[in-house]
């Protein structure tokens, strides 16, 4: 193995690219969970976003329209979950699983004609002068717009949750839905909106995979990214800035193992490929081991059913 083949600058830029889908999905799911809803369907919404974005981009010839379509597609699918859990009061765990199973099937169905096609080219943002800076240039100023959008979303989410009444209401609903209801907040409506935001974010993350990162459509291409996004939310203790850290950490492991494979590391490919999943488990264990001492940071109403009795 020749480690010198791994260029640190290239590695960092590729980490940002590999992490972006995770970041989109995780920040969306974090908002959903802040509102007290556990949606295990992230994987399903991501893959539907991946194919919706891909198909719409191919048909319209525009990557931007593709991303918009992916966000809408993810939101629509999440609304199915939202209606099931918030209106029909279904248990959130199986409903989320159903979303994932259905999304995988639906995406494969829609995606059949699109296998092997190349999507329209996306442009990277090239800030003159700045992008020519050594080291910092490629890392900070030579990405596609979606990378910046994902970073902006994290910042915006942080700001909304910390400094606005909207954020306060989302947290209140997730913390104690009975109390929020008693104060006159529309718990179901707020949760549905949060769920749709999460769906749109997951859709964007999926489309980033199929339109920019790979870029191609293959069945089941999310390969567990949605589940890793769920793990990132736990890792982040429901805090936006830590979601960023978590997404880049998990993405970093993914990028690193890909580089190692490319560099011809002396480890069988299968063991490198399984490493992100094993690392996820290890991180989850570390987090939960630490938390069992200090109590959990999870929203208190997370995953609980709300039915206004009057």
């Amino acid at each position, binding site marked *: 193995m020749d480690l010198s083949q791994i260029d640190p600058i290239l590695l960092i830029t590729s980490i940002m690219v590999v992490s972006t889908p995770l970041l989109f999905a995780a920040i969306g799911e974090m908002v959903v969970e802040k509102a007290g809803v556990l949606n295990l369907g992230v994987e399903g919404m991501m893959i539907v976003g991946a194919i919706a974005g891909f198909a719409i981009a191919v048909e319209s010839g525009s990557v931007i329209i593709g991303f918009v379509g992916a966000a809408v597609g993810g939101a629509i699918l999440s609304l199915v979950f939202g209606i099931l859990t918030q209106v029909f009061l279904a248990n959130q765990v199986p409903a989320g699983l159903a979303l994932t199973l259905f999304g995988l099937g639906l995406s494969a169905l829609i995606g059949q004609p699109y296998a092997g096609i190349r999507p329209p080219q996306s442009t990277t943002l090239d800030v003159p002068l700045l992008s020519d800076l050594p080291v910092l240039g490629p890392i900070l100023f030579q990405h596609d717009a979606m990378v910046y959008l994902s970073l902006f979303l994290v910042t915006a989410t942080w700001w909304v949750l910390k400094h606005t009444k909207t954020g306060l209401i989302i947290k209140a609903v997730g913390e104690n839905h009975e109390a929020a209801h008693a104060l006159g907040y529309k718990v179901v409506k707020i949760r549905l909106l949060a769920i749709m935001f999460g769906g749109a974010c997951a859709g964007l993350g999926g489309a980033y995979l199929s339109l920019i990162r790979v870029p191609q459509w293959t069945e089941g291409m999310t390969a567990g990214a949605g*589940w890793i996004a769920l793990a990132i939310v736990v890792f982040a203790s429901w805090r936006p800035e830590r979601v960023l850290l978590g997404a880049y950490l998990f993405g970093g492991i993914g990028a690193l193992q890909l580089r190692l494979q490319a560099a011809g590391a002396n480890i069988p490919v299968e063991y490198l490929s399984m490493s992100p999943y094993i690392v996820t*488990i290890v991180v989850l264990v570390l987090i939960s081991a630490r938390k069992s001492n200090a109590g959990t940071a999870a929203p208190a109403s997370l995953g609980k059913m709300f039915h206004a009795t009057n």
Partner: protein
Amino acid sequence: MLTLEKRAQPSRAWSLMTPILAVVLTMIAGGIMFALLGKAPLEAIRTIFWDPIFGEFSFYYRPQILIKAGPLILIAIGLSLGFRAGIWNIGAEGQYIMGAIFGAGVGLAFYPADLWFIFPLMVLAGALGGILWAMIPALLKTKFGTNEILVSLMLVYVAEHILSAVSFGALRNPDGHGFPGSRNFQQYEAASNPEIIAGSGMHWGVITAFIAVIGAYILLNRHILGYQIRLTGQAPRAARFAGVRPNLLITFCLGASGALAGLAGLFEVAGPAGQISIDFNSGYGFTAIIVAFLGRLHPFGILLAGLLMALTYVGGDIAQSNLGLPAAAIQAFQGMLLFFLLGMDMLTNFRVRLKQAEAV
């Protein structure tokens, strides 16, 4: 305006009705989906639900139903125990793979010996493989409180990579001209799981599934452990008050579901599948989740649900070859079934009332 009103107690009638209603609604929605795909909806529905049992070539398809239903039922029975207790093992697919690898590994270790105990030993190894894989989330949950949903799911991906590693490596058929995949058990009698009654599809896995259904029924309805499982799922605090030890229960439920999934994997690899290969697993572990819920987590319900789901698999195959219906359509169809079921579930616990516009 429609309003929901909680019933004083769950309705038994609706609890039996909802799965049937969900199936009907799925047929309607599925028909619409097939129409959108440009297929004749009624013909598609008939091909999926009728032809495998009563069609021209049903002599070929009927056994297929049992072959597919066996692993689904076996896995779903195990999962239902945990689901009832609020323990979410969604990594049965991984436990299924590990059961197959362990069982096949033991069988292949004896190749080409012809000893009576090889197959029973493989069965034990299969169960053990599933248990070991399920003990990882169990141990992490009981020791550290780690979420079992994510851990068991992550382990599916790990198991898939192990499967691919052994297909290329440790278990590769030395006489296979370098192709990935193990020796075929159908050509190694002492280690194979053959059809017991010719033309029925019945093999040891199916029989084990039937036994598991009866065993689970007795456990849940006649034994204190089954009572504790139900109690833990419905009222965890009351369960602790009743003296249930949560960690023991988690270990039992995950262990049992791992064992059954591992067995399903072993029977599959030694029987219908025949060999360990990269694409040996076909999603039974995930479909079994739908089966468990469709059967309302009740053993006999799961038996029926498993047969129905197997029917959609077999019917889907026919529709694929006869009508050109994509394989993925069946997967989407199954997902839809779970949606409708969960949505309808509300009717067992709530009464829907038409409320007149309020005069204020």
